[in-house]
């Protein structure tokens, strides 16, 4: 399980107005790894996730991206999106169909799968995320926690190899957040989580990249990086409370 799931080499991107968002960013995630991508607001985390999904304008992008052995280029975008499950920050953007079931079946239907296989995947994703009871409900009837779980189910049904998650715990209450952590912990996928919830990163991701101003500024074991106060402060972050008090040593 040591092959490279995500390989990014010297990636640069500038917004249409010329403002650089990513500046020669290089990193890799091995298959089966849970990796955290940490950085202050505007550091380039979300832009990087968009780049990995092939959503950025190729003309404004330099460098190379490799996902599951495929190099990201126009002709490979669909194949790469089959390998990636992207969970966007706001679940309301992810859940756009009239019912939860329709939303979960959306990806498999677009993959051209047979109806029996789609049913199997929808059942499996609902079961895995503990949302069987929400099957026929419209997304606007769900709580925030339920929306987050269903948003994950919508990508699991595509059986991706890699999950990219942008701020997965935003707006969740403590119980919803805990249940999300347990759900993510149970997944065998390669997972790249971008965000600020450092406690969540500590629990789920053994390794971390810190990015700032579109560059990777540090990488290494999560517990070491997040406990490094000067480093954290320099890049607009802070040491999580559990490490500051020396109480918890959780990352294996």
């Amino acid at each position: 399980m040591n092959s490279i799931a995500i390989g990014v080499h010297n990636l640069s991107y500038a917004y249409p107005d010329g403002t650089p968002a990513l500046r020669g960013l290089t990193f890799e995630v091995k298959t089966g790894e849970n990796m955290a991508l940490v950085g202050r607001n505007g550091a380039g985390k979300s832009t990087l996730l968009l780049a990995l999904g092939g959503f950025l304008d190729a003309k404004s992008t330099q460098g190379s991206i490799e996902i599951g052995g495929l190099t990201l280029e126009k002709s490979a975008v669909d194949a790469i999106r089959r390998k990636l499950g992207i969970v966007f920050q706001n679940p309301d953007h992810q859940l756009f169909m009239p019912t939860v079931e329709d939303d979960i079946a959306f990806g498999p239907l677009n993959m051209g799968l047979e109806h029996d296989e789609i049913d199997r995947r929808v059942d499996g994703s609902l079961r895995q995320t503990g949302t069987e009871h929400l099957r026929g409900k419209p997304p606007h009837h769900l709580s925030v926690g339920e929306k987050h779980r269903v948003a994950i189910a919508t990508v699991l049904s595509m059986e991706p190899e890699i999950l990219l998650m942008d701020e997965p715990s935003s707006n969740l209450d403590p119980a919803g957040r805990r249940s999300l952590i347990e759900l993510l912990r149970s997944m065998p996928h390669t997972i790249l989580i971008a965000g600020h919830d450092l406690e969540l990163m500590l629990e789920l991701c053994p390794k971390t990249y810190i990015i700032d101003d579109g560059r990777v500024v540090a990488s290494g074991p999560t517990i070491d990086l997040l406990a490094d106060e000067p480093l954290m402060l320099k890049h607009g972050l802070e040491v999580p409370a559990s490490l500051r008090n020396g109480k918890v040593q959780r990352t294996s």
Partner: protein
Amino acid sequence: MHHQYIDRYARGDSAVHQLDARTKLLCALFFTCYVVSVPKYQISPLIPLILLPFAWISFAGIPWRFVGKHILICSPFIVTLAVFNPMFDRTSHSVAILGQRVHLAGGYLVAVNLLVKYLLGLSCLVALASTTRFDHLLLALTKFRLPRILILQLSYLYRYLFELIEQAHEILRARRARSAGRLPLSLKIRSAAGMVGILFVRSYESSQKVFLAMQARLYNGELRPVHQLHVRTVDVVLLFSVMTYLAFCFWITHQ
């Protein structure tokens, strides 16, 4: 935030709920067309039509209070239209009330005609929305070959309307929190314009993000349904019965 969803009872399990969406949609369509076609000075042809929405709502077990509430919500517009009619239409019409022939200004007849049509039309609409899941309605419209773009727009309207209402509520609450008592009318109007602008920009940004999420799940311009609709014998019998009933209503009012 709690919304008074119009489709709150759409997921029931009564016999009416289990009918094919196309049957209910066609029934509602024929009924509405018939109601609309009744001439503006006539009221008696509308009376036997009350039976259909009454039976529909009763058999489906939808609370009358819920139906009444929705009828009231939309009523100001139609009541305003109705009350101004007697001022404009003063033509004299002879009508029979309790066996007595009396002369009335046409405006009064049009007003009552409008109100009864509104009552019938809206109760039928509430009955349809309360007994049919919206996704099934969209599927029925797809089967009736409505343009795909229109179905897509309806689908997103239903999905994001509630989000938009919630955002508007939040902005209004934020304005109230900072208005320190009474807000001058001029400032109210100016801030309302700003609010509309903000809502528009947010909607536009959201639509772009939704499109990204769709592309991430391999959307290529075609929306494929998960479910299929199934017409049963009961659907055919019911549709035939409703058409017979409408034909009967037509026949008794033209005797």
